[in-house]
C-alpha cells in the first residue's frame, strides 16, 4: 500500500459524490439517516474526555478534538434557552457543502454538529435536533434544538 498522502480534494470529491448519491436516493429524507456519521470519532476521541454533563464542556472537547485533527479552524457557540447556535469556521469539508449548494441542495449533514449532539445525548440524556445548516463565506452556522425528552427511551 502506498504511503503517499491523499489530497483533501480527492477525499472531499468522494464525499460529495456519496452525499449526492444519497440525496438522489432519499431527497430531503436523507438528513435523518446521517446522525450517526462521526460516531467513531465521538466514541474513540471525545466521549471519555468530556468531564461532565454540561453543554459548554461538550462543545469545548469537540472543538479541541476537531482542532487537533485539523478538521476545523474554530468552533464557537451561543446558547439561548434550548437552542444552540454554533459557528464552525474553516471546516475541512466546506468544499463538499459548496458543491452541494451549487447543485441547489441544502447541506444536510455536519460532523461537528453530530459530535456535539452525540455528547448531549450521551452526557445529558437529552434528545437534540439539527434544525439548520447554513454555509456562507467560509463559516457554517448550525442551529441545534435541545429537548426535554430523554435520549434513552428504552
Amino acid at each position: 500500500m502506498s504511503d503517499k498522502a491523499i489530497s483533501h480534494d480527492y477525499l472531499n470529491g468522494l464525499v460529495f459524490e456519496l452525499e449526492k448519491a444519497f440525496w438522489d436516493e432519499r431527497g430531503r429524507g436523507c438528513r435523518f439517516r446521517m446522525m450517526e456519521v462521526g460516531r467513531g470519532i465521538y466514541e474513540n476521541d471525545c466521549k471519555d474526555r468530556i468531564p461532565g454533563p454540561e453543554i459548554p464542556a461538550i462543545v469545548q472537547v469537540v472543538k479541541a478534538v476537531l482542532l487537533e485533527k485539523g478538521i476545523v479552524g474554530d468552533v464557537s457557540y451561543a446558547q439561548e434557552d434550548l437552542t444552540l447556535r454554533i459557528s464552525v469556521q474553516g471546516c475541512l469539508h466546506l468544499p463538499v457543502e459548496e458543491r452541494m449548494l451549487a447543485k441547489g441542495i441544502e447541506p444536510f449533514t455536519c460532523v461537528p454538529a453530530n459530535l456535539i449532539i452525540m455528547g448531549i445525548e450521551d452526557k445529558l440524556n437529552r434528545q437534540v435536533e439539527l434544525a439548520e445548516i447554513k454555509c456562507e463565506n467560509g463559516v457554517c452556522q448550525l442551529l441545534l434544538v435541545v429537548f426535554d425528552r430523554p435520549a434513552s427511551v428504552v
Partner: protein
Amino acid sequence: MSDTFTLAEATLKAIQDRRSIREYSPEPVSDEDLDLILEAARQAPSGENAQPWRFIVVKDEATRKKLGDISGGGSGRRFTAEFMTKKMQQRFATLEDEAKKKAAYEKLTSGAVSMFAATAPVNIIVIGRKDVWDLPFDTSAAIENILLMVTALGLGACWVIAPCIDVRDEIRLRKLLNIPDEYKAVSLISIGHPTRPHRPRPRLALKDIVFDESFGNPYYKE
C-alpha cells in the same frame, strides 16, 4: 340490503376508502382479522420474489407506550426544527384561522401527532432483510396491502415512519424489539377500530401527474 361490487369495483372502493386513522376505540383487533391482514402483506410482490419482509406484532401495553414515545420524540424533533426555521409557518400560510394554526403547531412540535401507537390495540412493525436489492420497495408493497386489507375489514390504520426515519430512533426501536442488524426497521402500522369517519385528503388530478411517452406531455388532455 348490501351493495354488490365487481372485483374491480370492490378493489377500487378499498383503495378510495382508505384513510390514515390515528384514533381508535378500545375494542381489540380480532385474531381472524389480524390473520387476514398478515396474509395480505405476505402476498405482496417483491424483487426476485425475495420476500424480505418480516412483521413484529405488538399488543403489549408497555411496549406500545414506548413505541408511542419513540414516534413522538422523532416527530416532535423534526417538526420543531421545521417551526424554528419557519418552514412550518410557510406550510400553514394559507390557514387563516389562527386558533387552528396554533393547535396544529402544538400538535406537530409536541410530537403528539405521532404518539397514537400507544393507544392502538395492535401495531405491526415492518422490517426487511437488507441483503436484497429492493428492500424499500418490497416492504412498501407489503405495507400497502396491509392498509387495503385493514380498510376492507372496516378497521383503520396509519402508516407511521416516525419511529424509523431518523437513524437514532431506528436504533431505539431495534433495541426495544430486538431487531438484528441484518434487518432494517421500515415502518410501524397502527391498527384498530376507528372512532369516527374521516374525510378524504385532497389528491392531485390525473391530468397533472400522468405523461404520455415522456415527461412533460400530458396523457390526459384538458
